């Protein structure tokens, strides 16, 4: 058999943790081979070993039928391997051509020959149908184009086998579709593509063969045609998982959180939240769906006071809170479970009790005349560990010693007991294993039953389908439309996520031309002249 990549018995340990255990992987030339598994299943470790960024503790590697030791990326590149990393490694201040030829500059008389590099880039770009402007600076290009540049970088190094690590995580559905078409054309040219993902849909859409990893081991390698989505989930998770809709009573609370015509800019100073209006009632879960990077982060940050808004209105129980400091907003009843738990959720080096104390360190019973009572804090944390089923030895454990799912539970425990009756929950189960996901969903439903108003932001549609009473879809900073959670129409949501306006615009009062809004690019290029610096 003609194998582009042949891994046998690869094992890699990090201390006591085994990331890869006895992995066999055979990738035939000319196929798209997907490697799928949950976070922490060992996909990225395996690819880093293949690309020479990590050394295996055991096992053999053969490329194109030759046994090799890949001790640096240079060796892998020389053997025709190319890697498109999940996080792009482009230099913003350099041009597209400079980035592509970085490390293999074309030189004349000892000086870099820019004209030749630009010409070669143009030729490559035409040959593979990946449109770029070679002399443009990378800073400010959209992620879709950045990914094209990364692929061209790999092609310029004559790669015949291309590894893509989670390539669609940051792409819009249209960009993903373009990417898949490009990958298909590569394979038609006799190249080989290894595709790492944890998204079932795209794996089913694009791959020829699927290898499933779980807990660092290969669970199955099968042709896609013999697999169903259901089977794939069972292989990935190890048991049948049903994310059925949670039973619930009707919503009859009063409006607790009202947002009207809210605008904000992202870090590049581009409008990223555009005229968002919504209302969440007590005892209701309002879901926000959308591809990551379409304004959800900005929405959560503005609501919690972490990002200055441009204008608009946010009312908590009828009281305007826009522009207040995060602590003041919290004091008025908002609890915030941030999207990135390691950045804004916990202090990873602090104990669980200290993490729990954050925000209530000056309140009774934890503080008595300005002196902290650690005994009270530890007792409270012990109670929370029990109540939220947090897998930790005790309240004095540093947060970093817990798994992602358990850290998330610590954040949820703190926020749900903070006394706020409006909960802003951003990506509650990102990177959390399935068992913990169910527990977190249970807890969110319990909060709903207690009459809390919940704004749930998630990129995972099945999560919203299970939990939300209503679902709003965001695209390019705008709320595209609303779907009833009870009879969720995935097709309609998918279209709105891609920027196609539903038949009836959700809020005609804003006077926005729906066609124009839909035509606006998801990642607008910064304007050349008026960019505010």
């Amino acid at each position, binding site marked *: 058999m003609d194998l582009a990549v042949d891994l046998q018995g690869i094992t890699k340990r990090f201390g006591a943790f085994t990331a890869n255990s006895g992995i066999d992987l055979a990738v035939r030339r000319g196929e798209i081979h997907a490697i799928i598994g949950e976070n922490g299943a060992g996909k990225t470790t395996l690819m880093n070993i293949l690309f020479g960024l990590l050394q295996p503790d055991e096992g053999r590697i053969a490329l194109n039928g030759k046994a090799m030791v890949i001790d640096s990326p240079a060796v892998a590149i020389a053997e025709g391997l190319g890697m498109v990393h999940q996080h792009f490694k482009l230099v913003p201040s350099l041009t597209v051509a400079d980035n592509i030829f970085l490390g293999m500059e074309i030189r004349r008389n000892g000086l870099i020959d820019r004209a030749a590099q630009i010409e070669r880039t143009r030729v490559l770009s035409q040959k593979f149908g990946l449109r770029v402007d070679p002399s443009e600076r990378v800073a400010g290009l959209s992620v879709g184009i950045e990914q094209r540049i990364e692929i061209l970088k790999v092609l310029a190094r004559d790669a015949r086998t291309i590894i893509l690590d989670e390539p669609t995580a940051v792409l819009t559905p249209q960009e993903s579709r373009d990417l898949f078409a490009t990958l298909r054309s590569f394979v038609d040219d006799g190249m080989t593509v290894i595709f790492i993902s944890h998204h079932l849909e795209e794996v089913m859409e694009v791959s020829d063969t699927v290898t499933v990893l779980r807990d660092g081991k290969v669970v199955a390698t099968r042709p896609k045609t013999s697999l169903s989505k259901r089977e794939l989930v069972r292989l990935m998770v190890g048991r049948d998982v049903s994310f059925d809709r949670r039973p619930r009573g009707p919503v009859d609370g009063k409006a607790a959180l009202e947002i009207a015509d809210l605008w904000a800019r992202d870090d590049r100073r581009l409008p990223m939240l555009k005229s968002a209006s919504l209302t969440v009632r007590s005892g209701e879960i309002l879901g926000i769906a959308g591809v990551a990077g379409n304004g959800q982060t900005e929405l959560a940050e503005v609501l919690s006071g972490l990002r200055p808004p441009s204008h608009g209105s946010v009312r908590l129980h009828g009281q305007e809170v826009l522009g207040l400091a995060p602590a003041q907003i919290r004091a008025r009843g908002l609890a915030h479970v941030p999207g990135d738990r390691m950045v804004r959720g916990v202090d990873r080096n602090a104990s669980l009790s200290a993490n729990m104390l954050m925000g209530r360190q000056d309140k009774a019973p934890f503080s008595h005349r300005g002196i902290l009572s650690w005994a009270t804090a530890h007792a409270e944390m012990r109670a929370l560990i029990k109540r939220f089923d947090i897998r930790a030895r005790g309240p004095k454990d540093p947060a970093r010693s817990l798994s992602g799912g358990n850290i998330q539970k610590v954040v949820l425990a703190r926020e749900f007991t903070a006394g706020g009756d409006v909960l802003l929950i951003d990506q509650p189960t990102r990177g959390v294993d399935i068992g913990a996901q169910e527990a977190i969903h249970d807890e969110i439903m319990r909060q709903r039953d207690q009459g809390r108003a919940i704004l749930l932001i998630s990129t995972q549609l099945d999560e919203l389908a299970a939990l939300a009473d209503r679902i709003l879809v965001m695209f390019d900073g705008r709320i595209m439309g609303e779907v009833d959670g009870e009879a969720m129409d995935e097709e309609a949501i998918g279209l709105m996520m891609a920027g196609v306006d539903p038949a009836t615009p959700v809020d005609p009062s804003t006077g926005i031309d729906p066609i124009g809004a839909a035509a606006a690019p998801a990642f607008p290029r910064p304007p050349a002249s008026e960019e*505010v610096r």
Partner: protein
Amino acid sequence: MEVLGSLFNVALLVATIRTTTPILLVALGGSFTTKAGIFNIGLEGQMLIAAFFAVIGSIYTGSSVGGLVIGVAAALVFALVYAVLVVSFRANEVVVGLALNILAGGMTISLMKAIFGTRGSIVGRGIVGLPKVQVPGARDLLGFNAAQLISGYTPLVYVAFLAVPAMLLIYGRTRLGLYIRVVGEKPEAAEALGISIARVRYTASLLCGLMAGLAGAHMSLGYITMFTENMSAGRGFMAVAILIFSAGDPLKVLAGCLLFGFADALSLRLQTFGFPSYLVLAVPYAVALVALFALSWRARPKTIRETLETMRRALSVSPERESSSTRS
């Protein structure tokens, strides 16, 4: 008016060029490390140690070139130690830089005591200064006054000013310059392409040492042939300040150094006019502060404004509505 006339003349420009040279050399050296992503506050120490060893070298070899080489070598040793600690052992760059600065200050004093048995300064004792370069034909072509501007400097003055275009070429068109920029701006990109970050940073550090060494040698063997305790007098730190505000861009470095050099030259001139010396000596630092403040004032983050212009583009409304909304 008479005072102003005698203050601002060709001699002041010549003095500016002379006083700019050491700080320009050391700041351009620091440009390499700044661009490579190292915050190098060890410039002062490298300059001082080079100034001292340039004098020693000049005495022992009896030649100014010998002095220059030995001075530069001493700065390179310091730069190497700095690179080993900061790049290989990942020590904190500020702590290491400060430590080396203090070491340079103390070491020159103790060595002076040990070798010459004196404190304060080394004067005479057979120190050979750098020769002055007369540009042939300059006087005939340009006349006395203009010729002064380009002729009669020590070689390092020419090196310093020619280094500016040379460095523009290095950053813009050579592989080394490109790698230095990439390592400073996006190290993970360099790493992914098999460019050794450590090697590039070592190279940048040593290039910095070379330039700082030239700066030091210029101080002690240039216009005055002597070494005094702490004779770098904060120029290395001034260079660091210039580097922070220029982000290592050679042209901006040149502009900053010229400003400081001009203020320095002006204060020297003012002293001869009988102004109180403590005020006069503060001039360069005051000028530098004002300039830095002006720069940072301009670069301060502007409040976020949702202008009609950007909103319209985001909404991509039709041109008719565009023009009407501008008026309203």
